[in-house]
């Protein structure tokens, strides 16, 4: 060993012109292989963007990018002396790739974004972004955080069409009647369907009429039947056909005409497409429970085998016996044929080839509504500017064009995709598969473009995310589109010790089905070879089975704790993982670990919303958002920061009138003294909080109250503080104008989050689900609860199945069951297939779990004994059941030994009904002081906002602006250039200027008049003429000047300043205020008061410029008024 036995395959995978599909079992180092191939391809392309590597998750993309970049960087350094052959080979490839890089000046190492390694979602997004028209987006929409709410909206709108007299309103009516007029049920059904529309929409959109739909959907039914019959035909051994016919003809002639076998009286060969005949055959061969008729006792006249005793005729009696024996012999032989029994049973559960009219009516109504709902959804997407991933994917598909007329991507992307590498191909969905087909449409053999698919069908465990392992199998046989794929299988396992690899080989060859079958996702086992030797350091077997003969969850948990302890003892640096299939299987395990004082790292195990800290925050949020949310308010009072007793709560709420709790809290006389104390502080904080509602972001609002109440002091440990942080981040994300659109959103988002792992955890001990562990490895893996059932599945209202067929896939759609009715055959069939797929996947889940182990694997499981003390098989749907053939001996042995050496004594805590709260006189520590900002001579501030700006109506303000502008022009050009005629002629200009400023159209005429009037009056006014007299010195208009005032640099713009003949500096501001009424002088005085500080500031500024006496003036052109005063420089002004 220590030899890479599959080296040849690995080498072949680097063949740059070949397309491959690689099976890479656990621990076979596939990322390394993809990296190498990427390097090989880099050396041959014209730009790195021509290679696209697709990964399953963003995390995986980041990892692969990292691998690739490290590999490239390898080439820039000398090879380390201890490099293994793989490293050396990688470096060699990287060197060649970098040569290419240098040759074409790619600068990959400084521009790594050029390496296209991405998830399928991000690939789709980049396609739709570059092909906005083909994708029918127009512009890239955002991805909705909460697509469910969009589906819901679309579903509601669809159902609201009930009253709108649309063509499809009758369909809604039909559906509602079918569903017992339960709108909510109909709505949730549509919501679910919309979420999965990538699976059905495609099949339905292309069909315009009801007839077409019926035909197509029935075609799928027929397809199922054909395929099932075919499979039985193929499996049935030709050698036994004549025997079958012999027995059949006999039996068929001995049954009534209405018997299932009656139609088989003349059978001379296997039935062809006649389902009824097949049913007859099956009736003959299989019992009702689906088992072979292998016991002569059970074969009776009912099946066409009259008892020999029923006849007096001896030879007839002999014949009867013979035939009976023949049947039993036949079934005996047939039972040896793998999968035949299953195939025959499948026929039994086949639905008919057509929908009944009743069925069709509802199917048709559904189809119609689904299409309508999809259209509504599109509108909702549009109006929100948000879509879901599925929409992006479908649009990407659309953008790629028809299969026979693919879009020229080179135009849109600037490069041609030459090579596609796909990782985790076993978890491909139909949608992704189609995308690959479309991306490679038009590829020709040998045109240099290649496809490289990598995955491990044995590790396909994402059925709940639409993964279809059958697609992998299919691709391996048929290739994708025109591209044939050379299958390669890796077998070396670099991860696990030989003992584990061998056990896995031996066990899973039995757990996995013998025969591959793409339709039900049956994957057969492929052997691995360990790279590492048998470990020397191991005490005992690498794989240990801990059998139990009763369902003792507690006992198992204790045993597990002991195993964890032992593992850490034997290998203090090693990791130990506890992997389970369902989180609910962890309750006792986790309690036991805690009780033993082990601080483990639990990854996505505990619901965040169940953490007391989060629950309190949740109540606080609800309470603050809604004073009438009584549960939340009461919870708020009972949370640890207040801890009001039940007695006080009862006293508080014991009011005649039904008032909200906050109101009740205002009168606390009936409470105990401590109760009053406890409420006091809370009341102060909440009063301020309620007063400031809508003034802070939701997060800040809630967090502030929490901190003020001493929330951080109410938690158990530091992890809780982090969990609180997660909650706050969620609030921030959901924040809609400082509130929540719907509380439901918070609930739903919360339900999807998990508490963070213990921040002080012992990193060596990890607890997670098997799904979460995929791709990871641990020194020791412990699998508890193998004897436990799977958590119950659901039975959806509407089921369908996407089936492979010639030239694509088809949709098998079961009618919705009417409320109160039974499910029909189609539904049952679809569910049966789903169940079967599920069962196969369960085996793979177990494989994933077992192959996480490097050194040691512990399996813990139980079964029970029957009344007669016989070993029962483990429960249906348990993982142990799958392993039973392998592990049964361990249980049998246990039964014999009946050893009961109890492991360590651990007393698990029973829920102690104790709560915690802050002590009554607790004081919050005070915070660190805020930073002090040193005041310096700060650079530039413009003048504070003109008070005018805030008070005048918009038009008036804009009139002022235009008048100022014109007065500036007058001042600059000199009064001489201006006449009333010129001012009048400029009216069109005033209009343009005013409307540019935002004066509303219908106010324009008056505004223009105003401007004109102001200017004319200035021109006609003596004061006005004086203001703009050319004979002044230092004439300046809109004079922009900066200076240091009171240690601040101030920038001012002075309307008008000049020095008159007496040497006085004038500083004048124009005010275009208008005024109606007779107290004009008062008005002017008031205005003067308002603007005085501003003008004095100007004066201060100008005083810096020269020593002249300064006069200040306000000029009101519309009022023909003038107000002036002399500026008295403040004594303290010296030095400024």
């Amino acid at each position, binding site marked *: 060993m220590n030899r890479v036995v599959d080296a040849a395959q690995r080498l072949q995978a680097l063949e740059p012109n070949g397309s491959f599909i690689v099976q890479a079992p656990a621990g076979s180092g596939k990322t390394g292989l993809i990296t190498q191939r990427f390097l090989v391809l880099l050396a041959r392309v014209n730009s790195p963007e021509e290679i696209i590597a697709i990964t399953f998750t963003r*995390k995986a993309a980041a990892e692969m*990018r990292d691998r690739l970049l490290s590999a490239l960087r390898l080439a820039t350094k000398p090879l380390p002396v201890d490099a293994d052959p793989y490293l050396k080979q990688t470096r060699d490839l990287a060197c060649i790739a970098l040569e290419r890089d240098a040759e074409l000046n790619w600068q990959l190492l*400084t521009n*790594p*974004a050029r390496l296209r390694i991405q998830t399928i979602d991000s690939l789709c997004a980049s396609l739709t*972004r*570059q092909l906005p*028209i*083909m994708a029918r987006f127009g*512009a890239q*929409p955002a991805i909705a955080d909460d697509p469910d709410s969009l589906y819901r909206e679309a579903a*509601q709108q669809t*159902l609201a069409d*009930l*009253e709108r007299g649309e063509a499809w309103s009758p369909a809604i009516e039909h559906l509602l009647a079918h569903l017992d*007029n*339960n*709108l909510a049920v109909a709505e949730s059904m549509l919501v679910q369907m919309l979420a999965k529309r990538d699976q059905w929409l495609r099949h339905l959109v292309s069909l315009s009429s009801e007839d077409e739909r019926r035909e197509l959907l029935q075609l799928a039914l027929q397809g199922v039947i054909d395929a099932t019959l075919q499979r039985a035909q193929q499996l049935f051994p030709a050698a036994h056909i004549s025997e079958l016919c012999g027995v059949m003809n006999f039996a068929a002639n001995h049954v009534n005409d209405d018997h299932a076998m009656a139609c088989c009286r003349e059978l001379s060969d296997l039935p062809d497409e006649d389902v009824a005949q097949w049913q007859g055959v099956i009736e003959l061969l299989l019992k009702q429970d689906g088992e072979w008729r292998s016991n002569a006792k059970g074969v009776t006249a009912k099946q066409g085998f009259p008892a020999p005793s029923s006849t007096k005729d001896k030879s007839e009696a002999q014949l009867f016996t013979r035939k009976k024996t023949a049947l039993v012999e036949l079934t005996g032989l047939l039972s040896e044929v793998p999968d035949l029994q299953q195939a025959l049973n499948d026929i039994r559960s086949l639905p008919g080839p057509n929908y009944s009219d009743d069925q069709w009516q509802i199917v048709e109504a559904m189809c119609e509504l689904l299409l309508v709902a999809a259209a509504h959804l599109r509108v909702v997407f549009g*109006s929100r500017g948000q*879509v879901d991933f599925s929409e992006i994917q479908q649009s990407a598909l659309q953008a790629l064009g028809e299969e026979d007329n693919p879009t020229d991507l080179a135009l*849109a992307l600037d490069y041609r995709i030459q090579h596609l590498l796909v990782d985790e191909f076993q978890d491909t969905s139909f949608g992704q598969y189609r995308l690959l087909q479309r991306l490679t449409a038009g590829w020709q053999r040998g045109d240099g473009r290649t496809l490289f698919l990598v995955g491990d069908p044995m590790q396909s465990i994402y059925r709940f995310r639409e993964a279809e392992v059958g697609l992998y199998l299919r691709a391996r046989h048929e290739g994708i589109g025109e591209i044939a794929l050379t299958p390669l299988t890796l077998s070396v396992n670099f991860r696990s010790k030989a003992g584990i690899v061998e056990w896995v080989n031996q066990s899973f060859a039995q757990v996995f089905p013998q025969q591959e079958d793409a339709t039900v996702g049956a994957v057969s086992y492929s052997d691995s070879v360990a790279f590492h030797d048998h470990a020397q350091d191991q005490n005992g077997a690498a794989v240990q089975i801990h059998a139990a003969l009763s369902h003792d969850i507690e006992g198992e948990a204790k045993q597990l704790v002991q195993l964890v302890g032992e593992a850490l003892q034997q290998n203090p640096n090693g990791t130990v993982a506890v992997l389970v299939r369902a989180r*609910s299987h962890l309750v006792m395990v*986790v309690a036991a670990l805690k009780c033993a004082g082990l601080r483990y790292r639990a990854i996505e195990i505990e*619901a965040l919303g*169940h953490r*007391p800290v989060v629950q309190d925050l949740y109540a606080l949020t609800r309470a603050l*958002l*809604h004073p009438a949310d*009584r*549960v939340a308010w009461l919870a708020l009072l009972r949370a640890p920061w207040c801890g009001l007793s039940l007695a006080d709560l*009862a006293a508080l*709420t014991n009011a005649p009138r039904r008032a909200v709790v906050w109101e009740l809290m205002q009168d606390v006389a009936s409470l105990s003294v401590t109760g009053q104390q406890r409420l006091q502080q809370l009341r102060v904080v909440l009063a*301020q909080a309620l007063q400031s509602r809508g003034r802070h972001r939701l997060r800040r609002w809630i967090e*502030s109250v929490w*901190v*003020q109440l001493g929330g951080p002091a109410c938690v158990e440990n*530091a992890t809780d*503080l982090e969990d609180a942080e997660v909650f706050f981040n969620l609030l*921030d994300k959901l924040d809609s104008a*400082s*509130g929540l*659109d719907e509380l*439901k959103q918070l609930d739903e988002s919360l339900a999807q989050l998990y508490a963070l792992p213990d921040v002080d955890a012992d990193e060596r001990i990890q607890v997670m689900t098997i799904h979460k562990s995929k791709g990871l490895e641990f020194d020791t893996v412990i699998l508890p609860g193998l004897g436990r059932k799977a958590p119950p599945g659901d039975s959806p209202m509407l089921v369908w199945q996407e089936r492979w067929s010639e030239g694509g896939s088809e949709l098998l759609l079961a009618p919705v069951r009417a*409320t*109160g009715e039974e499910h029909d055959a189609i539904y049952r069939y679809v569910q049966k297939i789903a169940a079967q797929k599920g069962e196969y996947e369960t085996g793979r889940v177990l494989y994933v779990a077992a192959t996480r182990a490097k050194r040691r694997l512990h399996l813990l499981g139980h079964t*029970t004994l029957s009344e007669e003390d016989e070993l029962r098989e483990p429960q249906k749907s348990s993982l142990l059941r799958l392993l039973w053939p392998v592990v049964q001996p361990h249980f049998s042995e246990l039964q014999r030994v009946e050893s009961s050496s109890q492991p360590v004594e651990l007393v698990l805590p029973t829920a102690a*009904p*104790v709560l915690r*709260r802050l002590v009554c006189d607790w004081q919050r520590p005070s915070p660190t002081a805020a*930073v002090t900002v040193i005041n310096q001579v*700060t*650079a*530039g*501030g413009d003048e504070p906002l003109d008070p005018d700006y805030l008070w005048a109506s918009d038009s008036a303000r804009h009139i002022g602006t235009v008048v100022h502008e014109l007065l500036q022009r007058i001042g600059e050009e000199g009064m001489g250039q201006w006449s009333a005629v010129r001012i009048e002629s400029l009216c069109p200009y005033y209009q343009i200027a005013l409307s540019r400023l*935002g004066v509303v*159209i*219908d106010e324009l005429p008056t505004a223009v008049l105003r401007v004109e009037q102001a200017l004319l009056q200035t021109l006609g006014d003596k004061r006005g003429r004086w203001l703009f007299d050319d004979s002044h010195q230092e004439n300046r208009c809109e004079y*922009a*000047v900066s200076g240091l005032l009171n240690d601040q640099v101030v920038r001012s*713009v002075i309307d008008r300043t000049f020095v008159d003949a007496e040497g006085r500096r004038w500083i004048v501001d124009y005010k275009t205020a208008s005024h109606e009424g007779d107290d004009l002088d008062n008005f002017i005085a008031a205005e003067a008061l308002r603007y005085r500080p501003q003008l004095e500031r100007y004066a201060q500024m100008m005083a810096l410029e020269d020593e002249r006496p300064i006069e200040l003036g306000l000029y009101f052109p519309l009022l023909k008024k003038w107000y002036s005063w002399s500026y008295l420089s403040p004594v303290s002004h010296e030095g400024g």
Partner: protein
Amino acid sequence: MSDLLQRIASGATVLTVNSRLSRHLMGEYEQWQLKQGNTHWPTPQIVPWNGWVQRQWQELAFVDVDLPTLLAEESALALWERVIEASRWGELLLNSQATARAAMQAWRLLRQWQLQPAVLAHEEGADVEAFYAWAEAFQKRCHKERWLDEAALPNQIAAALADGKLSVATEFLWIGFDDLTPQHQALMAAQQQAGAAVTQLDLPHKSAQPHTLACADSSAEIRAIAAWLRQLLDSGEPGPIGVVVPELAAQRHNIERIFDEALLPGAVLDLSQPHPKPYDISLGYGLATLPVVHTALNLFALVRAPAPLHQWGRLLLSPFITGGEQEYLLRAQLDATLRRHGESSLTLKNLIYQAGRHHCPLLAQLLKRFADSYSALPRRQSPAAWARSFEQLLQTAGWPGERSLDSHEYQTVEAWRKLLLRFAALTEVLPELNYADALKQLRQLAGSTLFQPQSQSRPIQVMGVLEAVGLEFAHCWVMGLHDGVWPPAPQPNPFLPITLQRSLQMPHASAERELNFATQVSRRLFAAAPQVIISYPQHEGDSELRPSPLIAEIEPLSPPDWLTQPPPRYRNQIFAARVLEQYSDWQGPALADDLPVTGGTSIFKDQAACPFRAFARHRLGAESLEEPASGLGAAERGSLVHKVLEQFWKQTNDLHSLNQLDTEALQQRVTEVVVAIIAVEAQKYPQIFSERFAQLECNRLIKLTCAWLEVERGRPTFAVAALEAEQLFAIGGIEVKMKADRIDKLASGGEMIIDYKTGKTSVNDWFGERLNEPQLPLYALAQGHAAEAITFASLRPERCAFQGVSKDEAVAKGISQSKIDWGVQQGIWRDALTNLAQEFRQGRAVVEPKEGAKTCTYCDLGPLCRINELNGLGLAEVESEDE
């Protein structure tokens, strides 16, 4: 630098790439002036180049009144949108406004590169083809209406300059342009032609000492920056300090929060006022997301059609309308009442009515006024007129409320008014709109408008990369430079041929260009202060990130004290100071004798399921807000059946009368009853009982009722003795009000008590210490000896049947004789129920869900009973039993 400043002082006009650089140079200049010992000086001309262009346009308008109308950005956008919608692609696209935005972007590029749409005429590809068509249409329309789009403005100015129509300064300095587009170049040439000296100045390049720092994630980065800032400010650093953030929009809230926490730790304790902050973030808030504006837009949306309750709820609780403070609590209760009522949507009219009934007169008045003004609006009018109408509508609602506005809100209201003006300006391109379209436009405008509250200048400036170009700081930190964002990935404009973009080196066109650009910017950025720290996150979610290759060569920062020993976080200080006590409190006060008990039989049910639940519900009145779903809820559906049967049996007293009716007559009677009842219900739930829905509901009820009556027909003779009869019953010291659905007199003379059920039922629920369904046993006790049978009448579409137990046999199909003596059974019930009653009376409130997690599944009291804290682990054991 001082050379530059000298030239500015001598009167050169400076044109900068953006306004931030203008401000910066202005500041530099002022410091320089002060350093020269000057106390005042003419304010120099330092303006962003596009501002200058605008200003020239004004000048031009003065000399030449016959200019085309300049379209504001939003008008141009609206025009693009129209053009796209009218095109053959319009129907297909998801969102024409977003498309318009993208198209406008492409258009701007064309303009900047001085290209005519005609260059696209022979290009292939659906995207370019569409854009070409739009561009042509847009141009044609502009031409026809004499509109000028902003992107073309610089060209116009250049032309005017060249024609000598404008007089300009003698010297121009162009500063901060890393990229000069052909449009810029043309403008510069025109300035020269007009006689000015034009120079493009590269900002002086200073040498600096950059260092890199790896942080766990972006929050850790921001925390590190905060610690750094704290240390700088504490040591008296006056600034300016720059913090440069490539993904500013995504990080904005985090930055604000973490900075506040570190720099103003006490601010978290005070919600009453905005705190003056030592930093300034160069990114506004979306106007539509600000609460005041949200309320306004919400009001406009709600007035139209029935709207979902949660949307009304937000209005009801808004402080920004009349009575928002005075009626705050009452409105909250009104909302709760509406939710309890069961309809998921509501019309304005209905709400006015409900507000009046539920003690919210101010609300009722304001909504009434609002509805009146709304209905007085014309169907179609110009955006300018709509702007005024919107203002008026707001006025009638008392917006922005009776609370005095804080400065932030005040500025928001100002921004809102400016927004309305911009909206009014759409009149140019959209002469008339109906209400819905006007509102849509307004929303879109609000959605895309950023609002930046004004602030005094602050020592810390937080900004994006492009804004930082050319600025200098005393200290600078650049965060977030991982290789995913720096150099940025190319994003060529999809509407222009990619080869064209690449060959003309348009922004984002190719990887090469982005690398060059990033390298250039980096060089400046990393020298923006004597000391620059460049950080990057190592993780984002669960993926790992790498440093940008452009910082790979820079020396890492050796961790200084402020990083290794940051000041403690306040929440951790509080946590450390915690003093908790344990207490046990599962016993409420016993019930006072004189207090009536409300809640009826559900007290028993709750007490049996979980004593705490009974205490919380019936003693504390704990109730959550309902979240009504679409259509009728399960409870309403059940209650309809009850009502129908009640009515039916009122008319049909016994088996005999029932049997008198043949199928047809029966059907008819049921139909009459159902129709009458639905008519009444439709009044109560106008939204739910739309015409066809009501019809469907009638059909459902008729079908179900008839099916049920067939079951009744199969019974031995009986007569209805009581229907929904109320009675008081005392047990275990409490007195409850009960209402049996129906009591029949049997042939034996005894009574059978019937409870209609439309959900799942099981007879087992009547047995055991803590019975799941205590209702019928309670009735049985109340009836005393007369009660000879109790039964569920299970009315479900799949099956209608009795499920009950009786004293004697053969009472009816589905009713079996009690296994133990009837009298004994009654005794058992009495004991169990007395026990529950006493528990309740005594205030027993332990958290004891009868079947553990299962009992809690549909209970909303979790936060109150603190079950999860008691359990210690929030996991529910789902499957436990074997075989």
